[in-house]
Every structure is written in structure tokens, then in C-alpha cells.
């Protein structure tokens, strides 16, 4: 019975989507604010990558909210899974080749992650993408040596401080720029590494926060005891 009602619901939604799909114009979007931002962003924000101008300038509050969602999900996940028992069983250690590869990967991933983060205002990529790679850098060794201790405490400190840095930069904007999250510092020369004012700083905070949060969350899941299949 319940299934039929649900299928009816799905069919209704499909019909609705079918009806509206006739009304949608592809490639002729109004782009009201998009057009204006494309014109104004190079002068107002000064990042070569306009998407970064939008993410950290025009819609910086969304990014703060997004960071908060990651933080909340990691906090709630930690609350669910709790601390691993002392002496809990864990996966066997990986073989020699994998361990060596993991040791080699760690610095490589770290450098790549940081590179992507600090170039976020110039090229595609940025704090989130780089942060994921940073998380991988800390997580891969954990996969190779499942028994090693993961220092949740220091990661939590990095996480909290990085998030607070984002907000504090925003509050500086409130005090010196008139509004919360207003971009500060000179824009510099477009296209150079030190340009676009506070945007690279914000992206570094985002990258560190995303990296530490995801690494912490995955370590929590990895430390969770396996269920026998």
C-alpha cells in the first residue's frame, strides 16, 4: 500500500518536471547578477578566478555556512562514534610496498594540497579541493598503518582555530570595512600570488579547516570496529 502511494508521488513529480521542462530555456539564462558580477568583480574583488570572487567575496557568508555544516557534521559524527576502545581490533597493517608508497605520498599530497589552496584565487581549485587533498595526506598513512594513533585533539584545535580565523577576518571587515566579511588589504596586481586582498587568507583558513575536519571524521570511521560479515 505504502509503496503504491510512493510510486504515485514519484509519478506526480515526474509529470511536474515534464511539464516545466518545456518552459525552460537552455543557454538563454537571464544572468542578471551573473553578468554584473562578471563585469564588476575584477575591480571590486580582484581575483583572477571570478568564481573565487563569488565564493569568498560576494557570497562569503554561504562559504562560512558551508564550513559550519562540515564542522557540525564532523562534530555530530564524532558524537555518534565516540572514542575507539583501547585495544580495539583494527585492520591488519598493509604490506611493505603500500607502506612505502604511503610514506612517499604524504609529503607529495601535502605540497599539492597547499599549492591548490594558495592558488585558489588564480586558477580552478581552492580551499575545499585542496582541503580534501590535505585530508587525504593525513588519512593515507592511517590506512597503511591502521594501528597508529590519530591525534584527534590537535586536529580539533586546528579545526577550531581555522574556523575562528575565518570569522575573525570577517569581523576585521566589520570594523575596518564597514560590513562583516568585507574584503580588506589592497587588491594587488591581478594574477599574482599576493593579490585579491584577504581572499587567499580566507582560503587558507578554509583549506586547513576542511582538511582537519575530513581527516578527523575519516579517522573516526576508520577506528570504528568492524562488524563481522
Amino acid at each position, binding site marked *: 500500500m505504502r*509503496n503504491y502511494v*510512493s*510510486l504515485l*508521488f*514519484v509519478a506526480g*513529480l*515526474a509529470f511536474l*518536471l*515534464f511539464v516545466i*521542462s518545456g518552459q*525552460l*530555456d*537552455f*543557454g*538563454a*539564462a537571464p*544572468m542578471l*547578477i*551573473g*553578468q554584473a*558580477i*562578471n563585469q564588476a*568583480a*575584477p575591480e571590486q574583488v580582484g581575483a*583572477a*578566478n*571570478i*568564481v573565487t*570572487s*563569488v*565564493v569568498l567575496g*560576494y*557570497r562569503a557568508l*554561504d*562559504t562560512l*555556512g*558551508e564550513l559550519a*555544516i*562540515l564542522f*557540525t*557534521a*564532523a562534530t*555530530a*559524527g564524532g558524537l*555518534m*562514534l565516540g572514542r575507539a576502545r583501547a585495544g580495539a581490533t583494527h585492520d591488519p597493517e598493509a604490506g611493505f610496498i603500500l607502506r612505502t608508497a604511503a610514506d612517499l605520498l604524504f609529503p607529495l599530497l601535502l605540497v599539492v594540497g597547499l599549492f591548490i589552496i594558495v592558488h585558489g584565487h588564480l*586558477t*580552478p581549485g581552492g580551499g*575545499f579541493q585542496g582541503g580534501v587533498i590535505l585530508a587525504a595526506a593525513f588519512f593515507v598513512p592511517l590506512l597503511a598503518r591502521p594501528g597508529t594513533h590519530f591525534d584527534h585533539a590537535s586536529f580539533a584545535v586546528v579545526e577550531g582555530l581555522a574556523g575562528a580565523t575565518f570569522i575573525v577576518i570577517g569581523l576585521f571587515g566589520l570594523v575596518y570595512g564597514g560590513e562583516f566579511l568585507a574584503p580588506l588589504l589592497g587588491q594587488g596586481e*591581478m*594574477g599574482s600570488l599576493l593579490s585579491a586582498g584577504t581572499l587567499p587568507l580566507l582560503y587558507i583558513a578554509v583549506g586547513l579547516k*576542511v582538511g582537519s575536519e575530513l581527516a578527523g*571524521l575519516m579517522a*573516526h*570511521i576508520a577506528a*570504528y*570496529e568492524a*562488524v563481522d560479515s
Partner: protein
Amino acid sequence: MSPPDLGAILFTGAFGLIMIGILGIVISTHLVRIVLSIVLLETGANLLLMLSGYRPGAAAPIIIDGVVPAAMVDPVPQALVLTAIVIGVAVQAFMMTLVLRLRSVYGTLDIRELRARLERDLAQEAGIGLPTSDDAPDVAGVGTARAQGGDA
């Protein structure tokens, strides 16, 4: 052979993913598959949002070496989809921690069984349906016994 209209292809893709995702949420009985269906639904929604910013012949909204392209696509939907992707994965990770915990507490991932267990646990906590009550004593009795067995 002339290719089909680009807009039609992409709208079909987005709406198709959305429909498959919703269908999956509705008909699946296994929790992991429901989680995967939600991921599909979100991908479809992101794709739809992305379609709202495209202009044929426009360039990516990045200024390379100071050269501003004549026409650039809308950067706003790109920023929105970036946000939405990360939000989606955060919720997905949290959902999986819940699934992990449920598996170790109840030992099942079938939503019908889970719903029954939930009903029984809630009733037991509230003190409804204990063997002394007058309705359906044996069902409730089995329920409490199994719930206690599960806790042990």
C-alpha cells in the same frame, strides 16, 4: 548526422538523475542503497542548478594573464554548486556514521526491520504494550523479549 540539442540532452540527464534518485529513495529497503540514492538525487539537483548559468560560446569565468574574455558564463551557479557539493558530502558522511551505529546496535540495515524495532523500543521506553496491557499481548511479548535479547 546532426547531433541532438545540447539543452535537451542535459535536461534529460539532470531530470533523469533526479527521478532515479527519488525512485531509489522510495523503493529501496536497504539503508546503504537509500544513501546512494540521495547522492544521485543531489547530483541531479546540482546539475540542474549548473545548467542555469550556461551561455553558448562563453568562456569559463577566469581571467588569464589579464585578458578578459568577451563573454563569460555565469559564475554564481558555479559558486552555488561548489557549496552544494560540499554540503552534500558532509550530510552523507554523517548519515554513514548513523548507519554504522545502527548496524552495531540493531544488527540490521533493512528499513522495514528497523522501523519495527524502533516502534518496539519506543513503546517499551514509554511503557506501552507490556505484557500486562490488554492489546495484542503475544506480539508485544515477543517484541520485548527480542529487544532485550538485542541489548544483551
